[in-house]
């Protein structure tokens, strides 16, 4: 049998495992992103009203990003052991949420900031209330950039999610790590292809969501 045939065979046998791990991976990353959006987008919007805070938060978030992923996952262990949640889903989830913050906050912040001041002025001058202005003008016009931030975060997190395997949070990383331990090419290849595919699919899907959320009038400008 050629390597390729064997690999197909391997896929056949292990399909349930692959599916399980993929689901786990998606659940972990998906939930983390969801929470990250719920925190990051409103925070980013709020920051546009407070310059001082904006620079503080953005600095903090970018330092967050420089923390190596394995170190962050690692540090979660002693910290969360305090509440007996040192390994598994919770620390992985928190680490991923933290990692997503910079692209989401920064993009939301700059997108809203960069809404043409003329357009913002017009909205105020026509008598829109703050909330109306936000939802009718600023957010729609900032949408492409906000979505781009979310896409970056998702693709990044799908990759980082692999490391979650080291602290028992499962996911596709398990395949890769087992592959290393057992020097099993099939496991490694399958695991990493699955992760890559997941990232590409997520990116494409979010691309269409982005397109769908982007007001038609902005398409040629962005």
């Amino acid at each position, binding site marked *: 049998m050629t390597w390729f045939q064997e690999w197909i065979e391997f896929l056949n046998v292990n399909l349930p495992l692959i599916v399980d791990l993929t689901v786990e991976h998606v659940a972990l990353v998906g939930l983390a992103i969801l929470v990250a959006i719920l925190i990051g987008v409103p925070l980013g919007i709020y920051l546009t009203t407070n310059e001082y805070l904006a*620079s503080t938060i953005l600095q*903090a978030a970018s330092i967050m990003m420089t923390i190596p992923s394995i*170190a962050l996952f690692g540090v979660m*262990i*002693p910290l969360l052991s305090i509440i007996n949640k040192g390994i598994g889903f919770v620390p992985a989830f928190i680490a991923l949420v933290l990692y997503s913050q910079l692209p989401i906050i920064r993009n939301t912040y700059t997108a809203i900031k960069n809404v043409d001041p003329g357009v913002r002025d017009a909205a105020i001058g026509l008598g829109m209330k703050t909330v109306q202005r936000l939802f009718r003008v600023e957010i729609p016009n900032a949408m492409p950039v906000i979505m781009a931030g979310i896409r970056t975060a998702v693709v990044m997190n799908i*990759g980082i999610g*692999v490391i979650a395997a080291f602290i028992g949070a499962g996911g596709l990383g398990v395949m890769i790590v087992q592959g290393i331990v057992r020097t099993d*090419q099939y496991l490694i290849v399958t695991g*990493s292809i699955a*992760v890559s595919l997941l990232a590409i699919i997520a990116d494409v899907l979010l691309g269409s969501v982005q397109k769908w959320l982007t007001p038609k009038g902005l398409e040629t400008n962005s």
Partner: protein
Amino acid sequence: MERKKFVSLMVRYGFYALVIYFFVWSFQKNYFSYLFKETETFVLLTRQHLELVAVSSLLAIAVALPSAVLVTRPRFRQTEWIFTNLANLGQTIPVLAVLALMISILGLGFKTAVFALFIYSVLPIFRNTVAGLNSIDDRLIDAAKGMGMKPHQILFRVELPNAAYSIMAGIRTAIVINVGTAAFAFLIGGGGLGVWIFTGIRLFDNSALLSGAVPVTLLAILADYLLRLLEYVVVPKGTRPSANA
């Protein structure tokens, strides 16, 4: 106005307090004991870590810059999207997989780790360099041509200096990520501070963990800081984004 400033200050000092508290807490719990108990090992691991990062980053720069310059030349313009897409695709492959797959090609150890890190760093540098070169205003190139500059003069006097910010940003991202990624070199016997991090994770030994993780984090932050300084020196003053804001 004043209230906003106040909130911001509170948050800023809140962060500082958290960080300080974290260190105090770790010291109290004796979580940095490895640093003192096994200083020799620490020096060894740090040296290995730095070697991994330095060798792989330099290689990456040496490969990424020329190839990015090459694919942005008019002759290769048509093929550029292939490289850019390949680069994008490459970014979706997890680090671990790159490391793991290298084992079967290069075996275990330092060489393999360097190679995997190199592969991982090439992409951001390449992408940013291409983006930087492409984002240069065509009119600048026109002006340069119209002045009678030769192609290499245009490249070195106009294109590269004006793309320097973007290139440096790519290098900085790559190296900072590299510092973190080098921690995985342990898995394939490449050494580095990852040894303690993984020991810590495997043994639930917070001392080993923090003695590895905190120095790696500080190294990453330090690298970021130093590269920012370098950026300040390398990037011409007139092309820094803050200058045009």
